[in-house]
């Protein structure tokens, strides 16, 4: 039952990872850029919600109405002022630029809020600890289920947006080939800025749930970035639904690892990530297909 419970909690944790990974994956898919400030921006959103709840008494879910557009604006500016400009000097320079930005953000948050760990759990009432009993030994937290459902809804919404709406199609065209998209009248720079705004809005949402389910401090950003990156890569970077698979695999590995050893949570997560990466790059294509065929019951 312990192992089963660990897997169950891990799967639910995977919902959060999918949520924080999807913005990162989205930006890799559209702009071919890894934003190393991704985790720090999630922490920024969490601190913004914390500030509004603590000092103005605004419920975090309500405050989201203001914080999400703000994160979108930050995304727009990030693309316009930093990513677009630094990409001109070479495809890897944006990585260095966003790394610098992450250092600025983390330390600025420390300067403003100090070293104390915070949480949004105090501002959402019983939701933070209520749970449903599945059997006598198995419980699932209401918040964990809410996060998982929200992650599915977010990914589904993004999928619908990308396939059914005009701006969504423009984003996909730009991701495919920005020059050709320009030829048919798409302003690819504007589309990239829109994509960055959407990605950062998802980061804001992920930041809120992160703050509700756990504690955070100004230097928590880099670890969130690593989790997001791991989930995105395990699920196949650039693929939206892949992030839910990646998140679940990562979450389950971590909770199972924690059963084995106190430090097993992080070690197992990193190890599974490296194994998947290893398998994808080192195993020949045929081996992978065979593996996939075995797992799906013979369908190639």
């Amino acid at each position, binding site marked *: 039952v312990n192992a089963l419970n660990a897997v169950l909690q891990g799967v639910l944790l995977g919902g959060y990872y999918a949520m924080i990974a999807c913005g990162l994956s989205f930006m890799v898919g559209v702009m071919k850029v890894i934003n190393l400030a991704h985790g720090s921006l999630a922490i920024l959103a969490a601190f913004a919600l914390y500030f509004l709840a603590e000092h103005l008494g605004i419920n975090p879910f309500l405050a989201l109405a203001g914080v999400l557009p703000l994160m979108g604006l930050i995304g727009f500016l990030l693309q316009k002022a930093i990513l677009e400009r630094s990409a001109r000097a070479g495809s*890897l*320079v944006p990585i260095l630029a966003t790394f*610098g930005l992450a250092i600025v953000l983390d*330390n600025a948050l420390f300067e403003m809020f100090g070293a104390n760990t915070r949480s949004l759990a105090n501002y959402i009432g019983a939701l933070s600890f209520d749970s449903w009993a599945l059997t006598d030994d198995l419980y699932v937290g209401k918040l964990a289920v809410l996060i998982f459902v929200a992650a599915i809804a977010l990914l589904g919404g993004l999928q619908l947006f990308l396939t059914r709406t005009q701006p969504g199609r423009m984003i996909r065209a730009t991701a495919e080939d920005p020059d050709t998209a320009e030829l048919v009248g798409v302003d690819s720079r504007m589309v990239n800025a829109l994509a960055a705004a959407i990605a950062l809005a998802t980061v804001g949402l992920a930041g809120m749930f992160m703050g509700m389910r756990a504690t955070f401090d100004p230097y928590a950003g880099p670890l969130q970035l690593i989790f997001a990156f791991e989930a995105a890569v395990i699920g196949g970077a650039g693929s939206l639904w892949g992030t839910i698979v990646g998140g679940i695999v990562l979450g389950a590995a971590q909770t199972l690892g924690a059963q084995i050893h106190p430090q097993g949570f992080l*070690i197992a997560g990193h190890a599974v990530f490296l194994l998947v*990466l290893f398998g994808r790059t080192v195993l020949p294509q045929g081996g992978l297909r065979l593996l996939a065929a075995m797992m799906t019951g013979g369908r190639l």
Partner: protein
Amino acid sequence: VSTTRAYSVSRWTSASVATAVLAGVLLLVLAVAPGLFPANVVDRLTALFIYVILAGMWNALSGYGGLVSIGQQAFFGLGGYFAIRLSEWGVSAYPALFAAAALAGVVAFAMSFFVLLLRAGEFAVGMWVVAELLRLLVNLDNLIQGDTGRSLIALAAYGMELRRNLTYWLALASMTVLLGTVFVLLRSRVGGAIQAIRDNEEAAISVGVRVIGAKRIIFVLAAVGCAMAGALWLATSTTFQPRSFFGIQWTAYMIFMVLVGGLGRFEGPILGAIIFFFIETWFGAAGVWYLIGLGATALAFALFLPRGIWGFIEDRFQIHLLPVGYRLHLRAAASQEAGGEDMGHDNRAGGSR
């Protein structure tokens, strides 16, 4: 057919010969410095040499090899850890520092068969995950006592004065040998291959460059250098703590030094390390604001001066003090006043491709 060609190719200029001579003299002066300078200056200079090593290694890896890594702290930490481990097994303190760097090189060699297959961005963050995993695994070693850390007790056998001077000379010698190796390597056939890969990997493959082999050499060299820096840092600070030795700040410092000094230029990281050294000396006490300043400066350079200060000087004044490329002098009618075109790959744009 005329036997006089319309061009000539040279590598050394009078300026670069003068630089090489000056560098030699400077190294000799630095070698006798412990007898001349007060103890705290000797300590600070040791730190400077370690910074130069770190910047030089990150530049070799990213500026020349095109391998941007956010996880070089993996090898810095391994250097410190292996030194402690080997010392515990009975290797005497100073030889243990070298052995630790060599051992980290072996780990890097084994690792390279996997990590070098990753694509650019995946390699960058993948190395970070590798560093985190290594930190957690090192933490499992009871010898280290978790985050409390462990001292290189064997160093206490040496007197304070002798220890300071030995560490200083070791850092100076390591810096000279490691940067010298990078210099010689970049000017060799392999160096040409490495720079060709950086400029355009597909084109390099098409002319027969063995991409993985060339990258592996630079990856292992950078790992050995960072591990040596970590082992030396242990010798100056004496206590190994996984959290600080495997900390991301080491890579942040490397990126700062190389971006500010000049990515993909041999002189760049040396200049960057000296600048970082003075900034740290003057503003290090400012704590959080110092770190904000470092991050903001790195960001500003990435945005507005991606070739760094040395890249700017080089483009502006056509100075090459330590050339790793070639210069082409045209003798045709329109002979160039400015001293010819530079044909080396060393003054390409600051970006890696």
